[in-house]
């Protein structure tokens, strides 16, 4: 299949995952907010495309870019945030748009100009971002360290996401467990091929997230999802490009588990998640 067709398939798949029964899952408390949810889903879909473009330029590899976009499109946290009204999701779209526009730019002045526009758009789209909300900056080293360990824990990555306690998918982490080997291989790859840009963004988002006074119930870390997707995709690509039998068998087993886990997540998201959200109706006092 041609690569443009594959991109179309990824986008179609993302479209279905974001728009299918958007008014019902998760339950919409106030019907007048459907438009906000629809806009958000559209921006999430656009983010998939932007990530494709960004990674294509970054890696200079279309297959890897397609894989990154696909991983991002189906990641549990991205899907969950893409189907509600989420400021973090809008901000992520703006960040990806900024990165995509600036990745090829050489002019420093133009970059600075675009950065100021980015800052403006980011601040109006994500007023809940804690740096915009706080007048005082309080930082306890103990809390920051503890938060770093929470955010980098296997539990947070693969088993439990507490960042949006009453409205989030709590029983899954931010990634599928099957992606663990790919994440490890991808991390090594990122170090080896020396893509400091990815690590830099991860570092910045990590530091901002762990310094949040609202942590762990804060969603700044959501902005890291495209970069993690790049790493996982890079891991899958690396895995797949090895020819020895053992790696192939391992890849096949993990791949089968991944398919099963994705189906598990969709089942959980469509059947169990709406029931759990209904129990928290009292907490929902903002667009959801």
């Amino acid at each position: 299949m041609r690569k443009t067709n594959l991109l179309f398939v990824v986008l179609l798949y993302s479209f279905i995952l974001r728009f299918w029964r958007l008014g019902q899952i998760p339950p919409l408390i106030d019907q007048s907010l459907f438009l906000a949810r629809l806009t958000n889903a559209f921006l999430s879909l656009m983010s998939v495309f932007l990530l494709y473009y960004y990674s294509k330029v970054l890696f200079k590899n279309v297959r890897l870019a397609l894989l990154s976009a696909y991983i991002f499109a189906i990641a549990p946290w991205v899907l969950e945030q893409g189907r509600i009204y989420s400021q973090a999701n809008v901000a992520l779209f703006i960040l990806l748009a900024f990165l995509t526009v600036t990745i090829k730019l050489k002019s420093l002045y133009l970059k600075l100009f675009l950065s100021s526009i980015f800052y403006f758009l980011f601040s109006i789209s994500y007023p809940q971002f804690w740096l915009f909300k706080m007048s005082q900056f309080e930082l306890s080293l103990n809390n920051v360290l503890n938060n770093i360990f929470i955010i980098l824990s296997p539990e947070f990555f693969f088993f439990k996401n507490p960042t949006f306690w009453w409205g989030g998918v709590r029983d899954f982490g931010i990634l599928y467990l099957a992606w663990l080997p790919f994440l490890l291989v991808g991390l090594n790859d990122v170090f080896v091929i020396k893509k400091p840009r990815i690590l830099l963004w991860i570092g910045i988002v990590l530091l901002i997230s762990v310094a949040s006074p609202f942590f762990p119930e804060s969603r700044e870390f959501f902005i890291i999802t495209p970069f993690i997707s790049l790493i996982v995709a890079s891991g899958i690509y690396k895995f797949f490009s090895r020819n020895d039998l053992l790696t192939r068998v391992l890849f096949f087993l993990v791949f089968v588990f991944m398919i099963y886990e994705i189906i598990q997540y969709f089942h959980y998201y469509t059947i169990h998640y709406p029931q759990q959200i209904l129990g928290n109706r009292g907490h929902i006092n903002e667009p959801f």
Partner: protein
Amino acid sequence: MSRSKFIFLFIILLSSILRFTWLDHFPPSLYTDEVNQGYNAYSILLTGRDEHGVLLPVSLRSFGDWKPPLQTYLIIPFIYIFGLNETAVRLPSAILGVGTVILTYFLVKELLKNNLQVNKIALLTSFLLTISPWHILQSRAAMLVVVGLFFLELGILYFIKGVIKSRLMILSFLSFSLSIYSYYGLRVITPLTILILLITYKRQLTNLLKPLFLAFLISLILLLPLIFGFLKEKDVVFGRARTVSVFYERGVKLKQWELITQDGSFSSTVITRFFHNNLYMYGRNILQRFLSHFDGRYLFFNGDQAWPFQIPNMGILYLIESITFPAGLYFLYKAKFEQRNFIMLWFIIAIIPAAFTFMTPSSNRTFTMIVPLYILVGIGFFSILKIVKNILTISAILLYGLSFYYFLHQYIVLLPRYHADWWSYGWKETVEYTRNIENKYDNIVIPDINGMPYIYYLFYNQYDPGRFQKEAVRTYVADRFGFEHVEGFGKYLFPNDFDWDFTKKYNLQSNTIYVIPNQQAAVDTDYTKAIYYPDGKIAFKIFAYD
């Protein structure tokens, strides 16, 4: 003497000082399991039988559990020399703890021998193990895992050396057999380690089939008593593993029931089974528990939350090792160290038994991972020191120094003063006091809570084991937590489910001493004597009624 030898001797000396000094004071008291092993060693020394009257047991029945016996047997000569006391009970652990530091040096030299800097890495690794809070904590208490780790590591070292000098293979399998007599977890870890060694060295082993077979046969003979023990009593091999396993705990089952209930009319039985089957639910749970051992909060910040494996306000590793450990993982593969896969696989299998239990993360059950982990920390630290220069090198060393100082403060000052209860403090003082006045009374009543008080009375009174074997009143019926109780011996009574308020009002006996933990007698002021924790809080109140 070469500089390297001098450093190695310094490491051994430091390691000995950190593990041998004031064994009777730090940790502040003997934990229940330590007392149990000490008294059983005493009992075997004097009568040839354990507290239950079993002649030379291959597995020790202990509070409803079965304990591997090696450590108890190792304690015997020390009790013979030093008497029944804290130091004698803890010495084998401390000695084998130092032994592990020494073995680690030689093992690293074997595992990384294609590297030019191997000697420096080996020295650094054994030094870091010497000052490791996790290793010091375990080595200074009579913990089964310390003995297990020593014999496992010895087995690995002899195996690798045995690839060249085949007669060492027998010593290797002898050590592996002893490790199986040391700790339950090793009954899984040791065979898996042997399997990995066989795969790792398969090419070299093709010429060694005869000595390998002989070594295997000898170890099988050594394990015969355990096999016969298993035929008589199933629990001998894995003890209470069943009751601490994830399959015994209700958490997964309850979650499964909740999800199936939520599925309700949405799906058929087949679909429900497809999504909420045991394999996926338990598999996910076990993986979650496995990966919990890599949680930074556990490793570097809060440590093990289970008593007595906790050091106040710190992790099982130093905070600076949150950098050197991942760096070690990276450089292990980047620098293509020989046997890197063996190191990683050993590291992983050391966690497997713990992942199947519901109390995770567990520093005790995963203790054998400490050696591969410190090899990684050593490689990481060494590689970082090679990259960074001058000021950063001094800063890194300073950071380690500060971390070590912080640990010593927490372990020597804070732990005994404010957390002595983690180590069942107060029983020694209680037994000594009651011993002095017990002649005037007919009965001494001690509620059977806070561990197993009977064993403290046996230990600190150096009660004649032969007499206890005859006098002990025990039903061998396990309570809901799986513990078996001793109801009394001599004039000592240990009632289970004892209610002090009720006894005080309706059932107070004359000529009787009552030893009541303070949480049951917090409001009482008419006590004869109070036993205090080092921080001044009351541990026990003793009431003597004529």
